[in-house]
């Protein structure tokens, strides 16, 4: 159905913690250079799914491949930019020291490192706060710095867990613009959200509830299939009263 091979292929994946099954028989594919949204309420298994894609976590059964490589695989982490739900910054360090630290972990050196740090900070509009300590940052600024770190090593695949939480609408707009620009450069983006209007901006969308994949299609396709006018209604339609 798609041209070329998918960047991510999730095949019959189950993930259980003890006897609690968090993900049930998930199968989906993400294509190159698209923005793929995972929509679902909190506790639905979004974060678990993203962690399986990074390889930090492992499937109980089934298979996850990223760029054709079966996960988890340490070397693949160099190809992935991951932004966790928590900001995960060293608050007692300056933004610059945080960026330099993560740049070094990804093997960025010298002039290239300096250039990339400048680039990503400009992208998230924090360039004049580079030398400020992170504990003086606001919530939104921390979120943006966290995003900047995920972009540092120019990964072909970005996995963003709730990237726009706590970011004001104007900046959210500009971040979406940048994400779309990254798409055009060939970067594949997978993000989770529970904000419905944000979901509409994704090229394709997976709806998850209680660890079950309800549907995966383009936003327009989802609306058409359910005969609803908004993503929110479509979600309710899939999750709630089945027809």
């Amino acid at each position, binding site marked *: 159905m798609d041209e070329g091979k998918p960047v991510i292929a999730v095949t019959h994946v189950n993930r259980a913690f003890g006897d609690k099954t968090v993900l049930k028989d998930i199968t989906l594919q993400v294509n190159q250079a698209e923005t793929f949204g995972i929509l679902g309420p909190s506790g639905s298994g979004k974060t678990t799914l993203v962690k399986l894609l*990074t*390889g*930090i*976590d*492992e499937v109980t059964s089934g298979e996850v491949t990223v760029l054709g490589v079966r996960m*988890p*695989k*340490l*070397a693949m*982490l*160099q190809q*992935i930019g*991951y932004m*966790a*739900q*928590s*900001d*995960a*910054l*060293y*608050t*007692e*360090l300056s933004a610059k*020291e945080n960026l330099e*630290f*993560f740049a*070094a*972990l*990804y*093997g960025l050196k010298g002039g290239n490192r300096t250039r990339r740090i400048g680039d990503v900070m400009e992208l998230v509009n924090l360039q004049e706060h580079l030398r400020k*300590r992170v504990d003086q940052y606001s919530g939104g600024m921390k979120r943006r710095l966290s995003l900047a*770190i995920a972009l540092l090593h120019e990964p072909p695949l970005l996995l963003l867990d709730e990237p726009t939480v706590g970011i004001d609408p104007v900046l959210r707009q500009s971040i979406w613009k940048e994400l779309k620009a990254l798409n055009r450069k060939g970067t594949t983006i997978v993000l989770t959200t529970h904000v419905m209007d944000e979901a509409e901006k994704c090229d394709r969308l997976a709806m998850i509830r209680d660890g079950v994949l309800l549907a995966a299609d383009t936003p327009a396709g989802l609306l058409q299939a359910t005969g609803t006018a908004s993503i929110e209604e479509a979600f309710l339609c899939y999750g709630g009263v089945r027809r």
Partner: protein
Amino acid sequence: MRIRAITLRILQQFIHDRRTMALMFIAPLLVLSLMSLVFGSDAYEPRIGVSGGAAVFSSALEAEQAEVTSYADEASGQAALKAGAIDALLTMKGDAPAIVLEGSNPAANRTVIMALQEAAQSLRPQAPGGGQLQPQISYLYGAEDMKTIDRFGPIMIGVFVFFFVFLIAGVSFLRERTTGTLERLLSTPLKRWEIVTGYVCGFGIFTVFQALLISWFSIQVLGIMMTGSFGYVLLMTLLLSMSALTLGTLLSAFAANELQMIQFIPLVIVPQIFLSGLFPLDTLPLWLQRIGLVTPMYYGSEALMDIMVRGRGWSDIAGDVFMLIGFSLLFMLLNVLALRKHRRM
């Protein structure tokens, strides 16, 4: 490269967090100073009561810096002893002197006996049948004096180094987990052993300075007894810090927050202090002595005591050195395994 990045980051965090740095460097000095003031204060001046024929000792005892009080009869002297007005009561039992020590304060006991021996020594030429002056010693409370005070200094150096490094390293590794930065580290191509090694190097640099400062301060400023080589003291302090650092980071895996890390103090630190040789171990049940053998602080204290008090060299501490290195390597290995909980690869 990556290890260097972690090392550098830890150094930067330290430089920004002056309070933690102060805790690591200044707090041990402060506590050691306090200990030295409390336990190693100037020569104690014993208060000795004399009654009856023992009055002949008065001037000789006073010459030994003792504060001498005369009592008309033994009963009033005993009453004063019980009331705590004097540390000891000297009487004559027939021809021989007899002394009753109050006994609850080991430092006082020792000075009393010392003063009495000196006094007896100086009186000897005048007294007939010299040996007779050797007093009979008995205790009102307490028992034989222990040599704890002599052993205090070296063990305390070990205890405080271990305690502070354990806590600081443990909490900072824990915070990697609670703030989510550990997960972020694990989302990079960083290997698990690189994280553990990076921590050891970053903290290691600080512990070198800490060991240097604490050893120098204890010996030069506080004047804790030191008969051996300074280099060995430094080595042992450093190795003890390393074992504390690796144990702290390992145990932080089993704590959900800072408070739970503090809860390891009574579980992990205090028992080690009790079993480190601070108190005589011979009287303890055998199983408890055996537990002491699997704690790093036991080996650290033993070696520090050998070096500082007994003036011993490499051949006597080599075993302890290897034990501490072994502990550190074991804790590091276990930590690499414990991190599997967060990322299997």
